């Protein structure tokens, strides 16, 4: 605008500014009033209390951040790690994991596992948070509820080793046919569908947690939805749950093993998936632990001289192939060619860049137990020697068999996390430069990726599998031809037989031999290209001790944690 202004004298400017100042003051006052109103409003939706520091030794309070609030605290339906972590603090099953990740008695005082079933003797002093005892009936009810077709529990399959469970879950048998009986309040009888070597591992899983029938029925479908919709029998009980904003766990004084619990309060007023925000909160002294870091944050952590720790989260990540006969990836030579140029070590050291991740060598991760020691020490993974020229030869054979003139173009299905995108770009470049194979990246949001996986709409897919229980079977089963998660439909008769054997045998030698054979078959058939065993790097306040990280079970576990004032 170039139009002229009438002569505005300086006095005007001055007096007008003066007036503006008055307006500003009035506005500030009005603003202050608004603030009061808003702070009242926000107290309704938030915690309303001023946040304590990360650690308060006096009151035994620990402040944490979680990636999200627990989506599902109804143990029959919980599937995700956050829900399982919270459930691990407020609930207790028949067995639980201790500070050394060993199975120890939980609500069950002792137990006996036979070939055809098991018996659990419950302890007398296990209590619900309303003071009533935890009985065998509560377990029986929970397991029935999880298997009832109307519950539509995604984890119902984990109860399938119970007699008739699968038939009940698919609606072919009524619920009372289940091989679980509460003999009396303190004795639980379980019948198996077939002999089972790892039932102890299973009953520690949250789907096996107890639920009290009268309470569950009272909630009218809202069981687990809110703080008053849950009964607790674990080391902590939940006292505050403002959705998406605040979660507070307090020591459960009715818990039978309360001496073990040394923290009084676990306060969780932050939910964010943004690790940068979490790191900022830690830096600001607001939270006591950042339970995983990205590679890009390590430099900052080093600069701050914080204590860095690591652990393996137990999951195995790999490139899955589509074995549909119409796909180029069903060709063994093509898969072999890809295998011969894939260097998991480069992926881990140059792309993921996080210590704790191990270059993938097998479907079976290093932490699994074998007969006497680690499974992978007893049955070492086959070595892959990188060989680009052999790979090109395999590619030539593959093109011959497939009747192609040029290397095929493959769709690589990945999820939409930044890390997955980077890996996809890495693979695209790797296979493009080494073999001339054009990789088309297919990045999809979580559910769309799952749909594409299940509809076999991919050639290659990055895939991760976390263990449900600490037995090689949780991995081995994955490539059985009947497994719904075997998305590429890998099918091999010998493999299937070997899995059946491992499922039904009780002899550890036979079972581990079977897994060893599975490992070989997967390598020979190039059923997958292992990428990495995921590790996590985390930081914690030096005053916080006794935090347990684990691959199977609730993680992180603060039930044994304690505070030292001067580390």
């Amino acid at each position, binding site marked *: 605008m170039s139009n002229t202004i009438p002569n505005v004298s300086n006095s005007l400017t001055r007096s007008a500014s003066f007036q503006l100042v008055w307006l500003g003051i009035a506005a500030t006052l009005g603003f202050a009033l608004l603030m009061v109103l808003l702070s009242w409003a926000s107290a309704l939706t938030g915690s309303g209390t001023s946040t304590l520091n990360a650690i308060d030794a006096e009151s035994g309070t620990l402040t944490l951040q979680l990636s999200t609030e627990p989506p599902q605290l109804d143990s029959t339906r919980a599937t995700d790690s956050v829900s399982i972590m919270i459930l691990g603090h407020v609930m207790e099953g028949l067995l639980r994991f201790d500070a050394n990740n060993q199975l120890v008695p939980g609500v069950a005082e002792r137990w006996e596992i036979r070939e055809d079933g098991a018996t659990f003797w419950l302890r007398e002093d296990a209590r619900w948070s309303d003071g009533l005892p935890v009985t065998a009936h509560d377990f029986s009810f929970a397991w029935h509820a999880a298997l009832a077709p109307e519950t539509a529990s995604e984890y119902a399959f984990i109860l399938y080793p119970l007699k008739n469970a699968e038939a009940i879950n698919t609606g072919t048998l009524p619920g009372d046919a289940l091989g679980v009986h509460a003999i009396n309040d303190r004795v639980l009888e379980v019948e198996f569908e077939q002999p089972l070597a790892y039932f102890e591992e299973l009953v520690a899983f949250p789907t096996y947690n107890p639920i009290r029938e009268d309470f569950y029925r009272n909630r009218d479908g809202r069981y687990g939805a809110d703080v008053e919709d849950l009964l607790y029998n674990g080391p902590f009980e939940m006292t505050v749950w403002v959705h998406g904003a605040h979660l507070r766990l307090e020591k459960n004084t009715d818990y039978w093993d309360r001496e073990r619990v040394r923290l009084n309060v676990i306060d969780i007023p932050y939910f964010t998936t943004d690790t940068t925000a979490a790191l900022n909160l830690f830096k600001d002294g607001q939270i006591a632990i950042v339970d995983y870091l990205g590679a890009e944050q390590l430099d900052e952590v080093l600069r701050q001289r914080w204590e860095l720790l690591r652990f393996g989260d137990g999951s195995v990540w790999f490139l899955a192939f589509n074995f549909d006969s119409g796909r180029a990836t069903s060709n063994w030579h093509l898969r072999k060619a890809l295998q011969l140029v894939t260097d998991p070590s480069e992926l881990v050291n140059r*792309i993921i860049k996080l210590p704790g991740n191990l270059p993938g060598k097998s479907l079976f991760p290093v932490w699994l137990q074998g007969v006497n020691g680690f499974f992978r020490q007893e049955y070492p993974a086959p070595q892959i020697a990188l060989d680009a020229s052999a790979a090109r030869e395999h590619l030539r054979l593959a093109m011959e068999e497939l009747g192609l003139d040029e290397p095929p173009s493959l769709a690589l299905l990945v999820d939409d996390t930044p890390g997955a995108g980077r890996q*996809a770009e890495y693979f695209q470049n790797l296979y493009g430069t080494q073999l001339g194979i054009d990789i088309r990246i297919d990045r999809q949001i979580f559910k769309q990726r799952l749909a594409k996986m299940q509809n076999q709409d991919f050639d290659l897919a990055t895939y991760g599998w976390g263990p449900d229980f600490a037995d090689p079977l949780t991995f081995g089963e994955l490539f059985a031809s009947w497994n719904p998660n075997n998305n590429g439909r890998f099918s091999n008769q010998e493999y299937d037989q070997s899995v059946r054997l491992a499922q039904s045998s009780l002899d550890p030698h036979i079972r581990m031999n079977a897994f060893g054979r599975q490992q070989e078959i997967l390598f020979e058939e190039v059923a997958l290209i292992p990428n990495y065993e995921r590790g996590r790097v985390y930081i914690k306040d030096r005053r916080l001790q006794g935090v347990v990280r684990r691959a199977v079970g609730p993680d992180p576990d603060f039930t044994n944690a304690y505070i030292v004032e001067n580390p």
Partner: protein
Amino acid sequence: MTEFSLTAADFERVSVERRVQTIARPSLSYWQDAWVRLKANRRALVSFYIVIVLLLFTVAGPWIWAVDPTVQDLDQLSTPPGADRRAQIVQPYVPWNGVFTTINESLSDTVGATTEIRLAQPASTQTVRLVWDPVLGASGYRVYRNVYDPAPDGAVGLPLAEIYDPRQVSYEDLLDLTPTRYWYSVIATDRNGREAEEYTTLAVDTIRVITAAEAQTRGLVDLETLLSLGDEVRVSFHPLGTDYLGRDMLARLMYGARVSLFIGIIAPLFFVLTGILYGSAAGFIGGRVDQILMRFADFVVALPFLLFMILFKIAFGIGPGESGVVPMLVALVVLSWPATARLVRGQILQIREEAYIGASQLLGAKTHYLILRHMIPNTVGVILVTLTFAVPTVIFVEAFLSFIGMGVAPPTPSWGSMCNEGIQTMLNHPHELIFPAALISLTVLAFNLLGDGLRDALDARMRSRE
């Protein structure tokens, strides 16, 4: 009576005095006038030049800086601009089995410090191989690495490895090695897996290395040049540094500009065009049709923009190998046309009522003449301004979608997605955020100021004021 005779001269035409009518300044058409005003507006002019430079950067840039934006240089990950490029030629990487002792001590409850850590071979960015003397009674070792000296407070840094086998007294570090000084600490663990109180630290200076074969395939030296071990070469030059996969930032910014500016310019073009057609149809036809058309436009305006943008993005889906630019364009057009439609319709209704249109009609102007001579010139200014202001909005929308992970699919770069990547590494590699963010800001700013200038220049009401 006087003789009155007429001569031919008397019948000559009286000359008309035309000087009064002379126009002092050359007559200016609407566009000439607008151009003059735009030139007078310095800010707008500068913005105009910036826009041209940005377009050149996008279109001609890749010819001048002919670097493939997809080439990954895994030896130069996230390198800032102006990093040291010297590299030594070394042998290709050979796997190392490590060093194992045969002693088999019984484990003890307390263990001492590792006595000495040595390098098995000179440390380089290819590998750092550590060997240490076994510690009596240790159940294993933990290896840490720091880029700062751990001495003052024992901050040993990154937990590189946990070794459970007491016989293994070596470790090979391959993790993201850069040419710098590292402090390696090896701590023995006792029978219970607890770390020893004391430990030893070794400071190691790594140098950048490259194999001769790599140097040649990357084009760092001629194929004829014979390289021997220890020779020094310079790794490829990246004026703006590299990103997390070692790709050239400048080249990526240029290709990213193609996506961002393409979406930023094409989407507004399309939705403005749709809006013009729709709005002028409504304006010309009028009556019931106009009512219905405009009511529908109102509905579309009422859709929450960002929410629907996200919905459409997932509804259209992006197939394998696709960049996702087209679905984003479609979604933008579908959601954004009504604003222009309303504007154009309003203009047309207004112009139809103007006196000069009536006058023109009285003088016998046909409809197509009216449209060509009056309607279009009088609306085009407004449309141009709308278009200019739409560009920054769309660029922001693209950036926003990238931020929440709904942007273009990798490996296609866009400024928004580069920004989003950069924000993760903001503290350590600020160059990955600064450059794309600065380009976004510059573009948005330039188009905004240009839009201001155009509005002032094209506004017919303003012409009378000068």
